[in-house]
């Protein structure tokens, strides 16, 4: 009688996170909020890129907000808040990525109906964030010209699970002898057909094109009957 037995489970390990992320995505869509999850290594320039994006959106009276994840300090939230956008810091205290419930808790008192765009700046890390769905519509992988063209090949998972790639610090491309074509080829090898934006937060290169793209994506979001997955892919 006391025999071992097999319980068939057949479930996703991260089902709790995935289910919450799905609910959040549905709510974001319902309220008309385009949500972007920004992932990259530490030092790629996510914050500078995001700050420039937020600043231009705020200047154009576009309702936009951001949450930013870091292990410690509220420095990034302070930097982003200089744009005039609503910003909240998520301190993970050692945790290497954000999870859906952390985002949910930190925006719980925000009225989403008043927002058009929400950016989630993930913890700088090219490994862990790829597993965790945060309810975003678009996952954006950032890569700076200083990191080397082969970054996508070294960290294929993160680039493969992203919908869009943004190359940052293009103003430094020449100094770094950045091989643009190789970088684009590598991105396309990991994620065939991925759309790439080449930008510089410092000179403003590519930022308007990027914001135009977000506008189109938000329109697309509203047109979709019900959003179950990322929309840019």
């Amino acid at each position, binding site marked *: 009688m006391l025999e071992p037995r097999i319980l*068939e489970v057949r479930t996703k390990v991260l089902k709790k996170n995935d289910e919450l992320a799905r609910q959040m995505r549905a709510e974001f869509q319902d309220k008309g909020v385009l949500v972007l999850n920004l992932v990259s290594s530490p030092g790629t320039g996510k914050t500078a890129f995001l700050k420039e994006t937020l600043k231009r959106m705020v200047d154009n009276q576009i309702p936009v907000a951001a949450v930013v994840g870091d292990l410690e300090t509220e420095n990034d939230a302070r930097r982003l808040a200089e744009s005039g956008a609503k910003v909240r810091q998520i301190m*993970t205290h050692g945790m*290497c990525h954000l999870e859906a419930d952390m985002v949910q808790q930190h925006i719980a008192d925000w009225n989403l109906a008043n927002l058009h765009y929400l950016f989630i700046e993930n913890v700088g890390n090219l490994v862990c964030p790829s597993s965790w769905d945060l309810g975003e519509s678009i996952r954006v992988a950032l890569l700076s010209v200083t990191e080397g063209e082969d970054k996508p090949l070294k960290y294929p998972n993160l680039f493969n699970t992203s919908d869009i790639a943004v190359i940052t610090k293009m103003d430094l491309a020449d100094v770094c002898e950045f091989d643009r074509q190789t970088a684009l080829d590598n991105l396309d090898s*990991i994620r065939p057909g991925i759309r790439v934006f080449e930008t510089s937060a410092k000179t403003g290169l590519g930022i308007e094109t990027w914001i135009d793209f977000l506008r189109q994506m938000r329109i697309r979001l509203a047109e979709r009957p019900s959003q179950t997955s990322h929309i840019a892919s």
Partner: protein
Amino acid sequence: MGRLYRLQVTFASRTLLRLKNQSIFMHELSIAQNIVEVALEHLIEAPGSIVRSIRLKIGALSCVHRDSLMFSFELITAETPLQGAELIIDSVPVVVFCPTCQALRELPGIQRFVCPVCQTRTGDIRQGKELDIESIEVEPVGLAVDDAKMKQTNPLNPVPEI
């Protein structure tokens, strides 16, 4: 369900909470915690049992390091009904659909999303993102064993005052 067994499940949950509070996180530790949570939910169907093994399906694109996962799992399951449970990992390669061949193709790695037969680039991934729990092997052991176990202390999970 036995009272002691229920307490054990409670303690296991507290271990998770303590780990969260102690912030000793890494990627595979979070994954291991999620595995334990799912397993504990299912243990309710098998009161008084311990877990012998958990079968996982892990895709090449799931970004999970096998040894780290095993280590994390061992760490967080000590002195719980999952102590000593074996993680059986079935690795799943990436399979894409090639639009030229109109066929499913297995990729040798995860760096080139190119059909290995005709060299067409394709991002139409049909397999390889899995991070699934397939099944859990449980063994009824009765409450006496649980009782003995309860008296031991896991440094990560000291038996609280009741």
